[in-house]
C-alpha cells in the first residue's frame, strides 16, 4: 500500500472516529464541562450554514461539528504551567449533493466559446475552433477532452466580450480529473464534501502542548509546540502581519472569520516574557518556527462555490489546456481579406497553459521562521516583526522560464519568451513589519496601525519575457474604532464604528503604453503588472447591540478604490440562549465588477505567425496590448469585483454544547 493511500485511509478512519465521538457526545446530551479537579475542560458546537446565491440556488450547506479540549498537567517546578490543547473539526458541505448541477457530480455541461472572426460563426463549441486540426499543429483530441462538464472561464462574473476564454472543467476531480493540479487543486467529491478530512489531517484544527518555564528574575519562557494558529497584527480582515498560517479562501472567500479559515501548521512558538522592564510596561520576544510541510492558501478549485479572484477556475482551465489542449475564444487573427475579428482556436496539448505546480517539498531550508518584539511603552502597544516565509499565493512563471512548450505552427518544442505556458511556484518572501495601537482621548478613538515591507513577491507582468517580475511591496492598515451613542436607535448602548484603510504599494511596478494603446485602438491597453501600483481598500463596520447583547445587527461594507467595487453585508446575530445562536446575513456587491487588462494574446511568442499589425518586427516577441477580462483583469477587479455576481443570503444556526 502506498504511503499516500495509507495516509488517506488513516485520515478517513480518524474522520469516522471523530464523527462517532462527536455524535455520541451530542446524542447523549453531553455538555461543555470541567473535570472535578478543574484540569480538563471541553466544549464545542454544531452548526449549519446555508447560503443561497442569486441565480444559482444553494451555494453552501455546511454542517460543522467542533470539539475543543484542554488538559492541564502538574509537571513539578520546571514548568509553572503545562497543558495539552486540542481542537477537532468535522465539516460536511451538502452543497455538492443538494446542488450537484452547479457544484457536484453533474456540474457544468457543453459550452460554446465566442469567436469574433467575421468569416465564421460567432461562437463555437469547445473543440470546434475555427483554427483547429489540420491547420499546422493545432487541434486536440476531443475524446480525451470532451465538451461536457465544462463552464466558460469567467462565465460567473462577466461576458467574454471579445476577450480570452476557454473551458474550465468543474466536476470534482474523481468525477473528471481534467485540469486537476496534483496536491494543490485536486479535491475529489468527498474531499469537497468533507473538506477537513484530507492527507494533511485538517480535522485536527489544533493539537499543541503549552508550557511556561519561570525564571528567578520573574521572566518567563513560554513554549508552545504543535499544530496551531499563530496570530500577528492588530487589524481585522486584512492580512498584513497575520501571514504565518495560510488561509482557506474556499470556505467563504474573504468573508469568514480568520479564526475559522487559518490553516493550522506544525509550529514551535517560543516567547520570552519579561513583563515590565526598563522603560517598557511590557516587553516580550517571540520566535516562531513553522516547520510544517509547505501549505499554500486554499483558493478553491474549478467547480467550487467560492474561489478568490476566480483563481481555481482559471488554474484548472489552464492545466486542462496544457494536458489536453483547449479551445481559446477570440484568439487568432486570420489573413482572410474582408474579415475582421479573432477566431476561436484549438491549441494542442503541451503548448499553452499550466504544466505543473511546484509545491516546495519538506526540507529544512523550506521551513519558515519569524521574530517579533512586542510590548507596551508609554501606553502605546507596539510590535516589530520579521518573517521569512514561502509565498502562500502562487506565482506563475512562464515564457522564457516556463515549461518547454510545443509551437503549434512549427511543431518545435522549447521555451518561448512571452508564451502563456506556466509552472506554478511559491517564492520565498522576507517580511519586515511593525504595528502600534493607541488611544486618542481627545476624539475618544482607538487607532491601530500595521505595516509591512516585503521583498521577493512575484507579480504577473506582461512586459517581461518570463511574464512575471519581482517587486518590493509596502502594505499597511490604519484602523479606527470608536463607540458612539445614537440615542434614537438605542439610548442605552453605544454603537461600534470601525473603519480600516488598507493600502498596497508595489514599489517596482511596471505599466507601459503599448503599440496598440499608443495607436489609440480601444481594444488595446497598457501592458505590465495588472495589480494596481497604488491601491486602497476601505472597510467600515457599524455594529449595535440590543437585548443584553443577545441581538446584534451590523453592517459591514468594503470598497476597493482601484476596482471601484463595493460589498455590503448586513447581518443580524441573535443569541437565543447560551446554547442557540442564529445569524441571518446578506452579501451584496456593487460597482464596476470585472475589469480588462492586457491578456497577452498579442505577445507574439511564435513570431512571425502570431505577430499583430503593431509588431514592426514580426519576429520580435512582446505585447501589443490587446486586452480582455481574462485572465489578468481579475487582478484589477479584485476579490470583490470578481465575485460581483455572487450576491447571497445566508442563514447560520449554531448549537453550543
Amino acid at each position, binding site marked *: 500500500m502506498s504511503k499516500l493511500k495509507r495516509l488517506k485511509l488513516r485520515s478517513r478512519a480518524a474522520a469516522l472516529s471523530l464523527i462517532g465521538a462527536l455524535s455520541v457526545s451530542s446524542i447523549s446530551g453531553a455538555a461543555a464541562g470541567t473535570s472535578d479537579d478543574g484540569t480538563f475542560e471541553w466544549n464545542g*458546537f454544531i452548526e449549519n450554514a446555508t447560503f443561497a446565491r442569486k441565480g444559482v440556488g444553494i451555494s453552501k450547506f455546511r454542517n460543522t461539528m467542533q470539539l475543543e479540549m484542554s488538559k492541564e498537567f502538574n509537571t513539578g517546578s520546571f514548568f509553572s504551567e503545562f497543558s495539552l490543547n486540542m481542537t477537532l473539526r468535522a465539516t460536511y458541505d451538502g452543497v455538492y449533493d443538494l446542488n450537484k448541477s452547479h457544484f457536484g457530480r453533474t456540474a457544468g455541461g457543453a459550452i460554446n466559446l465566442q469567436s469574433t472572426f467575421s468569416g465564421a460563426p460567432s461562437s463555437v463549441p469547445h473543440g470546434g475552433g475555427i483554427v483547429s486540426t489540420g491547420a499546422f499543429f493545432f487541434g486536440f483530441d476531443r475524446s480525451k477532452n470532451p465538451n461536457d462538464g465544462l463552464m466558460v472561464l469567467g462565465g460567473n462574473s462577466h461576458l467574454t466580450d471579445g476577450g480570452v476564454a476557454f473551458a474550465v472543467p468543474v466536476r470534482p476531480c474523481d468525477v473528471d480529473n481534467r485540469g486537476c493540479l496534483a496536491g494543490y487543486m485536486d479535491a475529489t467529491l468527498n474531499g469537497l464534501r468533507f473538506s477537513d478530512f484530507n492527507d494533511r489531517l485538517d480535522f485536527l484544527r489544533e493539537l499543541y502542548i503549552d508550557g511556561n518555564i519561570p525564571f528567578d528574575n520573574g521572566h*518567563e519562557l513560554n513554549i508552545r509546540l504543535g499544530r496551531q494558529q499563530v496570530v500577528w497584527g492588530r487589524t481585522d480582515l486584512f492580512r498584513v502581519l497575520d501571514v504565518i498560517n495560510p488561509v482557506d479562501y474556499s470556505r467563504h472567500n474573504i468573508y469568514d472569520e480568520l479564526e475559522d479559515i487559518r490553516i493550522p501548521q506544525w509550529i514551535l512558538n517560543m*516567547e520570552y516574557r519579561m*513583563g515590565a522592564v*526598563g522603560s517598557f*510596561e511590557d516587553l516580550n520576544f517571540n520566535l516562531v518556527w513553522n516547520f510544517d510541510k509547505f501549505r499554500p492558501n486554499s483558493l478553491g478549485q474549478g467547480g467550487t462555490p467560492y474561489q478568490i479572484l476566480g483563481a481555481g477556475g482559471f488554474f484548472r482551465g489552464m492545466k486542462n489546456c496544457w494536458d489536453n489542449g483547449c479551445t481559446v475564444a477570440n484568439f487568432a487573427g486570420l489573413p482572410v481579406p474582408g474579415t475582421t475579428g479573432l477566431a476561436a482556436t484549438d491549441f494542442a496539448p503541451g503548448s499553452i497553459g499550466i504544466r505543473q505546480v511546484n509545491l516546495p517539498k519538506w526540507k529544512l531550508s523550506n521551513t519558515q521562521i519569524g521574530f517579533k518584539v512586542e510590548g507596551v511603552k508609554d501606553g502605546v502597544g507596539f510590535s516589530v516583526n520579521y518573517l521569512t516565509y514561502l509565498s502562500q499565493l502562487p506565482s506563475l512563471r512562464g515564457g522564457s522560464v516556463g515549461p518547454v512548450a510545443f509551437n503549434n505552427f512549427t511543431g518545435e518544442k522549447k521555451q518561448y519568451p512571452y508564451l502563456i505556458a506556466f509552472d506554478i511556484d511559491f517564492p520565498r518572501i522576507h517580511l519586515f513589519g511593525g504595528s502600534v495601537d493607541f488611544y486618542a482621548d481627545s476624539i*475618544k478613538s*482607538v487607532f491601530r496601525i500595521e505595516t509591512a515591507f516585503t521583498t521577493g513577491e512575484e507579480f504577473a507582468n506582461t512586459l517581461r519575457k518570463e511574464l512575471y517580475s519581482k517587486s518590493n511591496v509596502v502594505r499597511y492598515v490604519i484602523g479606527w474604532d470608536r463607540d458612539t*451613542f445614537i440615542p434614537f436607535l438605542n439610548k442605552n448602548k*453605544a454603537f461600534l464604528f470601525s473603519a480600516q484603510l488598507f493600502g498596497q504599494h508595489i514599489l517596482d511596478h511596471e505599466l507601459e503604453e503599448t503599440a496598440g494603446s499608443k495607436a489609440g485602438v480601444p481594444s488595446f491597453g497598457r501592458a505590465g503588472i495588472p495589480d494596481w501600483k497604488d491601491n486602497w481598500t476601505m472597510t467600515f463596520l457599524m455594529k449595535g447591540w440590543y437585548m443584553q447583547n443577545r441581538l446584534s445587527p451590523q453592517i459591514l461594507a468594503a470598497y476597493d478604490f482601484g476596482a471601484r467595487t463595493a460589498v455590503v453585508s448586513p447581518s443580524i446575530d441573535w443569541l437565543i440562549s447560551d446554547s442557540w445562536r442564529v445569524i441571518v446575513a446578506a452579501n451584496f456587491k456593487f460597482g464596476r465588477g470585472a475589469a480588462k487588462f492586457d491578456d497577452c494574446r498579442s505577445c507574439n511568442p511564435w513570431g512571425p505567425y502570431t505577430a499583430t499589425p503593431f509588431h514592426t518586427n514580426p519576429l520580435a516577441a512582446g505585447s501589443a496590448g490587446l486586452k480582455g477580462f481574462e485572465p489578468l483583469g481579475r487582478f484589477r477587479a479584485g476579490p470583490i469585483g470578481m465575485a460581483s455576481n455572487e450576491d447571497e443570503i445566508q442563514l447560520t444556526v449554531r448549537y453550543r454544547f
Partner: protein
Amino acid sequence: MKKQITALIAGTILCVSAAFAQNADVVEKSFYPYKEGVPSYKGLKSGMVINQANVEQFKEILDESMYQFIKDGWTEMKITDTVAYELNSSYIAATKANLNKVTLGTKTGDIQGFVAGRPFPAEPNADDPRAGEKLAWNYKYGYNWGDSGAVYPFYWKFRDLNSAKIERTLKFNFHFLNLKHRVTDTPKPDLPRNPGNLFRAIYVQVLEPFDVKNTQLLIHRYEDDLKRDNAWLYLGFQRRVRRLSTGQITDSFLGSDLMIEDFEGYNGRISDMTWTYKGTKNILLPFYKHNDQKLTEDHKMSDGYKFVAYGGKGGCFPQVDWQLRKVYILEAKPVDPNHPISKRVHYVDAETFTLPRTVIYDRKGDLWKTFIIGQAHPDFHIAKNKGSGVSIDDSFMMLDVQGAHCTTGQFKGQLDSKLSPRKKFTVQNMRVTGK
C-alpha cells in the same frame, strides 16, 4: 524668664500630645465607628424581616430604591446585628503612619503626599467643598481586595425582571493587583519595575459560555489620576487584543447591566467625576456572614463552597442579611457631558469604605439602575480569607428599573496572592491565555 521658658516648653509638649491624641482619635473613629456602640433604630431587631407590611416603619433607614422595592413586594430584607468589619491592621497602621501628610492639589484628581492607608480618615465636613472628593480618594485607596485578590470563579446571570427567566450565565475569573501603596504583601509599599507608574490592574477572563469563552479584559490604572486608564479586550473568536476606548468603559459589559465603570461600585478615575458629600446617615446595608446565609446548590464547587442564593422579583435579589450601618452619602456626576449617566449616588460604608449600595440616574435624571454589592465578613467565609481584614464582595445585583432587567453576581472571593501573579496583568498574558 526661666519659668517662662519652662512654661512654654511644657505648653508645647501638651499641644503636641494633644495633637497626637487627636490624630489617634481621628484614626480610631474612622476605622472603629462602632467601638462605642452599634447604631439602632426603633423597632429594628436582629432576625426580623422588613417587608411590605412594615416597610413604612423603617423608611428612614432605607435608601430610596430599597424602600420602593420592598414596598412593591419585590423583595424582603432579613435583619441581623451590626457587626464590626475591622480592616487589616497593616492598613490601619499605614493610615496612622501617614496621617496628615496627604493633601489635595488644585484640580480634582490631584493628590500629594500619599503613601499608603486611608488618605483622609477625618470625618467629612459638609462645609468642606472637597469633602466628597476626599471620600472618593478614601474609596480609591481603600483596602478593597487588599493588595491582591481574586474572584475565582464569578458567576453572572442575566435575568428578565418580569419573567425571572435566566437569559445568560457567564462564568468569569476576576483578578486584582495593587502595584502601589501596598500594606500587607511584600514588596511594599510599591512593586518594583513599574515604568508606567501604575497604581492598580484588573484582569478578567471569561470561562463560559462558549461564544465568549476566553474573552479577557485588562485595565491598567495609572497612579496619576489625571492620566486615562489603559484597557484592552481580547476576543477569543478573533484571537486579537483590542484596545478599548472610553466609550466601551461606559457601555454595557458583554451585554450585562453593568458597565466596566460600575465594577466594585465605581471603577474609574477620581478626575472623571465631580464629587459631592451629601451627608452621613445610618441605613441598612447588605453586610453578612456568608456561611450563615441561604446558599444555593447551583455551581456548588468540589471543595464544598456554595454561592449566595437569589430570590425576590425576577430572582434578582441576593438572599442575604442586612444590618444598620453608618454611611456617607456621596454623589458623583460625570465631567463628560456625553457620559451615559447623569449621576451616581453611592452609599459609602463608613467603616470599610466599600460601596454596597449605589443608585444610578440616566442622562435625563431619572432612576435607571440600582446596585447592591453584598459584603461578607472575612472570618465567616472560606478558610483562607479568615483574618484578612477585607470586606469581601460576595454577591451583587445591578437592576435596570427602566429595562426591567437585572444582572446578578455570585462570588467566590479569594484572598490568595498566588491566584493573581503579576504576569497575569500584561497584554501578552491575554494573547497567551486566549489561545
